[in-house]
């Protein structure tokens, strides 16, 4: 995955570049809004990580200009402002996701990966049935089956599984789940999300030898076939 980081804080930028490279991605860096705009327009990036406050051209204007030029690369906005309505402003300017500073890198990575995948698969080609191993979720009839056996889920459990399966093989953080399943953007303080996931897990994985819902330590959850590195 090719990522462009547009961030004026040198230390933060080099930390991000290094961290993305360590996780196997290609990361470039632009130190101001104009450079960032030029690089984003010319280069073929999968995701742009844009700081809101940038010299020369601020983050939101940069995104707006890119969108006007029909550059549809997904953008994740980083913001130290964290105002209550910042997210709305950011998304309205054409951003795709928003992360207030300070953030954990695992959170940023998970979000960037989800954004890049969203780009790879056009929204119209989203399948009506998600399949992982023997687990099937039908988005139209709201039916979930595993090995042909029907699993009865509560509406919220269904949405939880739907979001996990939509982003199968990718880490999904607790905040992302709260955002997409409950439509809230605050920091879930206690283990509220964990309990919901473990309930879902007991319905999906109980009685089957191969668990599909995995906990990724220090990051979140992932639906995939077979165990993986870093799993508890």
């Amino acid at each position, binding site marked *: 995955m090719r990522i462009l980081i547009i961030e004026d804080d040198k230390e933060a930028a080099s930390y991000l570049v290094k961290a993305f490279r360590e996780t196997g991605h290609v990361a470039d860096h632009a130190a101001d809004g104009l450079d960032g705009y030029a690089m984003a327009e010319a280069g073929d990036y999968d995701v742009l990580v844009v700081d809101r406050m940038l010299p020369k051209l601020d983050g939101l204007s940069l995104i707006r200009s890119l969108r006007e030029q029909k550059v549809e690369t997904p953008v994740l906005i980083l913001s130290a402002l*964290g*105002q*209550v*309505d910042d997210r*709305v402003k950011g998304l309205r300017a054409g951003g795709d996701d928003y992360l*207030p500073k*300070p953030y*954990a890198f695992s959170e940023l990575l998970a979000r960037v990966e989800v954004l890049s995948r969203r780009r790879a698969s056009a929204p119209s080609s989203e399948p009506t049935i998600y399949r992982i191993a023997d687990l099937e979720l039908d988005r139209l009839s709201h039916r979930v089956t595993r090995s042909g056996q029907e699993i009865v889920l509560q509406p*919220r459990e269904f949405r939880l599984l739907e979001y996990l399966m939509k982003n199968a093989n990718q880490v999904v953080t607790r905040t992302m789940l*709260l955002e997409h399943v*409950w*439509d*809230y*953007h*605050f*920091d*879930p*303080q*206690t*283990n*509220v999300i964990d*309990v*919901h996931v473990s*309930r879902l897990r007991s319905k999906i994985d109980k009685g089957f030898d191969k668990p599909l819902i995995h906990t990724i330590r*220090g990051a979140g959850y992932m639906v995939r076939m077979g165990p993986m590195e870093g799993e508890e």
Partner: protein
Amino acid sequence: MTALGKLFRTTAFKLSFAYLVVFTLFAFVTLGYVAWSAEKVLTDQFVSTIENEIEGLSQQYRNGGLRRLVNVVDRRSRTPGASLYLVTTDVGERVAGNVGALPPGVIDRVGQFETLYSRTDETDTKPNAALVRVYLLPGGFRLLVGRDIEERIRLRNVIHKAIGYSLLFIGVLGCLGSWFIARRVLKRVDDMTDITRDIMAGDLGGRLKIAGTGDELDRLAQNLNDMLDRIGELMRGMREVSDNIAHDLKTPLTRLRNKADEALRTARTPDELKAALEATIEESDNLIRIFNALLMIARLEAGNARESLADFDAAEAVRDVAELYEAVAEEVGVSLEVSVEGGLPIHGNRELLGQAMANLLDNALKYGAAPDGSAQTITVSAERVGQEARIVVADHGPGIPAEERSHVLERFVRLETARSRPGFGLGLSLAAAVARLHEGRLLLEDNAPGLRVVLVLPLKEVPVPQLALPSAA
């Protein structure tokens, strides 16, 4: 600026002066009109008298010719208080009448006009003014009939003097009044300025004096005092926050530092190092969380989230958050009873209400367990009471003593009993800040036993849908 200059610049003075000008103009116009009307009435009277005289004289002339006219004029001239008469020859020689000297040329002017004259019997006094009418008689003779108008002139003078004096009087009195009012207002404003200057210099306890007159200055002073109270509150809040931040962040920061230090000294295997690093990251995340909560409260209190408000259904938000926490509650053996009335329209921020609800439920789960382990129930309800939505989270835990209730809404305040459990003492402060943002309030009540937190939010007025009746064809 001189003291007088300052006085002249006051609004009170300017206003009084404007009124003064308006009233003076008004008085001037009124008196002027009176004078003009009085003069007109008198003049009309003179004219009609003259016309009557002429009527009579022309009758005499028609009956008896010039001789008869001269006789009548002669007789009438001698009556006391008579009008003015003069009959002259074509060269201006007096034939009869009581008018002596006339300015030259007057007798040759035919028609009605004003002129100066003197009577034949009083040659030494200065000439008087008169309204006269001159006729040309056959044979070049001229007849002059007129009335003395000195009286009218005296009246005019009296009125003019009255106008002058009253204007002078109004002017002086008005100026004095303006000056007095301006000085009074200026003094009060100066007092206010002095006090505010003292306050700015650091005497934050100072308050403006209220004169008790209930006028606009009193209202202003009252508002300023309220503002000062609010500023004082915020200042105290700020000071408390900074003190508390210093104090409360010291603990996790020290812990963080110690963990890193200990790992550096004792960890030998990569696994031990990794575990130590993970622990330090967890501590840092806690710190970040505290900062985020603090920032959020600060922003809400600063009121700059106001523009992010929109209309939403509070009932749905409460249901959603209750549903989010229901699983956790069940996990720890608490039953969450939710009764939410449908449709509670609110103008506000759904995210923030959700966050506040999450905090309240979090608290209820953490501290709301009954001491004896029985009755593990948390009740969540939302209902419409009048024009307000009342959202209640009630537990059966030890509750909060009445005297502590207002205190726990402050930042970082944690009851002694809660010290042993995780938390930063920001949850209720945030919920209270959210309530304030929505122009509502957060009440802490006794659930006997337990704590009952009531979030009161004003409902958005929803216009009663009017049935669209088809107009009668």
